[in-house]
């Protein structure tokens, strides 16, 4: 620490430059992570926040809601399977909500219409208003982002392309599906909307898209054996099955991965060059008795101080950015991930410092005697 700190104090500009570079890298990492997190949340928050453990799809549907069609009557049979504590059907269609502004203008909003059984474990708790009621099939609970669009409790909106209208009974939090606002309605009513066209239910009784299961001890194999024509996956796998989800999160993860590789190189090369520049000093100090360990510790603690300060600054800047970003921007900071990425960056820096320690070991104290130029 003695050497590390003294040197940084004496060469403020140089270390400030490296620090700024490091801050920018960590800032970029955090922003990208926040954006990725925001996007995937938008794509799947309804699924992610759902109190279900497993999802039963139609066989061959690749865990995709849109491709899967099952009979809701399977629910009763599922309940008989060991490990299944609760089962509840669900269906999703995409649509638009239409609101009249004046006689010649209307505002449209993309929504995901999700049918669930009122009062089941799939119904999210309302933050405001009342929940679903099978006796009031046209009353919906909607994601609170609809408030930003001017909707209020008790408002009625039409569904584009249909003669159906829904009334807002209450608002729920963090419920989006495929990047759009989730609107929950009783599943019986949902069925009327989803299979309005004759024959679109393929003759299945009580058709739904999937059945969600609760129960940690469920064995998907058993379910598949008992109910041929079904395919049971974990909730996490079902999230992966959401259209575009895998591609989107994959792209962001790839960018993050590249960013880590790039930062490893940049940081590594920087520390390496700095250490090389100082090889003369290291030679002198070795000549007067410094051990490799003493110099190595100095370099590593210097990198540690510098990286820590830079990463903390990066974190602060990221929270600052989050505060000024527009409301609708899908940007969510997850503390656990922030800590994880910080630690990865710190590890990268320390590893590159460790690599430069090898350079120090190679410095010959003889060069201090002016023989080696």
């Amino acid at each position, binding site marked *: 620490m*003695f050497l590390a700190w003294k040197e940084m104090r004496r060469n403020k500009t140089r270390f400030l430059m490296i620090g700024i570079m490091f801050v920018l890298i960590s800032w970029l990492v955090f922003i990208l992570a926040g954006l990725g997190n925001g996007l995937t949340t938008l794509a799947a928050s309804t699924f992610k926040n759902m109190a279900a453990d497993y999802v039963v799809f139609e066989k061959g549907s690749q865990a995709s809601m849109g491709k899967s069609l099952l009979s809701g009557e399977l629910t009763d049979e599922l309940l008989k399977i060991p490990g299944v504590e609760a089962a509840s059907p669900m269906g999703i269609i995409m649509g638009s909500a239409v609101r009249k502004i004046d006689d010649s203008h209307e505002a449209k909003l993309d929504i995901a219409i999700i049918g669930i059984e009122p009062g089941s474990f799939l119904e999210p708790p309302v933050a405001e208003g009342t929940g679903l009621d099978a006796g009031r099939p046209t009353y919906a609970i909607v994601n609170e982002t609809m408030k930003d669009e001017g909707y209020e409790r008790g408002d009625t909106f039409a569904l584009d392309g249909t003669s159906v209208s829904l009334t807002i009974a209450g608002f729920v939090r963090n419920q989006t599906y495929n990047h759009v606002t989730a609107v929950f309605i009783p599943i019986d009513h949902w069925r009327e909307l989803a299979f309005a066209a004759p024959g679109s239910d393929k003759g299945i009784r009580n058709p739904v898209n999937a059945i969600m299961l609760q129960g940690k001890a469920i064995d998907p194999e058993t379910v598949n054996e008992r109910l041929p024509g079904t395919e049971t996956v974990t909730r996490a796998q079902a999230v992966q099955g959401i259209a575009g989800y895998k591609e989107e999160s994959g792209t962001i993860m790839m960018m993050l991965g590249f960013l880590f590789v790039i930062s490893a190189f940049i940081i590594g090369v920087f520390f390496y060059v700095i250490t090389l520049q100082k090889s003369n000093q290291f030679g002198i100090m070795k000549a007067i*008795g410094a051990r490799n360990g003493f110099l190595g510790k100095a370099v590593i603690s210097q990198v540690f101080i510098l990286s820590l300060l830079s990463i903390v600054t990066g974190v602060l800047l990221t929270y600052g950015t989050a505060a000024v970003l527009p409301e609708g921007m899908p940007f969510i900071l997850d503390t656990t991930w922030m800590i994880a990425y910080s630690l990865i960056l710190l590890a990268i820096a320390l590893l590159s410092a460790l690599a430069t320690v090898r350079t120090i070991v190679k410095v010959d104290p003889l060069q201090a*005697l*002016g023989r080696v130029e």
Partner: protein
Amino acid sequence: MTQGLEMRAVSKYYDAGSERITALDRVSFKVEPGEFVAVVGPSGSGKTTFLSIAGALLRPSEGEVLLNGKDISKLPDKELADIRLREIGFILQASNLVPYLNVMEQLLLVKRMAGKITEADKTFAARLLEELGLSGRVKNYPEELSGGERQRVAIARALMNDPSVILADEPTASLDTRRAHEVAALIAHVVKSHHKAAVMVTHDERLLSYCDKVYRMEDGRLSPAEPVPVA
């Protein structure tokens, strides 16, 4: 037990391709506490090699190097570093200070390498700096010092670990005549006042008057030189 530094039939060979260069050829030599010895000789004669072996920077190919009676010629690197840290004071050519440490810190660094810095160390460092006329420059950085002052700091640093022997490799190489005399005189002074054995390698024959003995190095062979006429 012999105090100071002694070499017994020390040889050093370098392998340069197929050739074998004899940099030191059976050198025997001795310097005692309170004695200031100079080694002169033409370029390439082996002076730096000699000093490196004396200073535990290099192991000889043959022969013994006794520091306070202990043979250090076959010790591993780590222990050699320890010997340098505790037993040897180096005064190197110009710019051998650490650029980002102030004068006081240059001295304390030596103690820091060996462990913790104590109050006694600070007092000792301050006394050394005073002795070398640097009291007013304690907080200055190397770039703010003149060449002569830098070498005085280097002398103080060489004394900081209370070494058995002080080794100086062309300590006046980058100084003008007046400063060179000043530095040589100061080394001679601390050798007496701290009762240290000291060896100085130099090109500058005018400085030999400060030394008690003069040796001449030629083709790796060391021999006593004629006593120099006092200037």
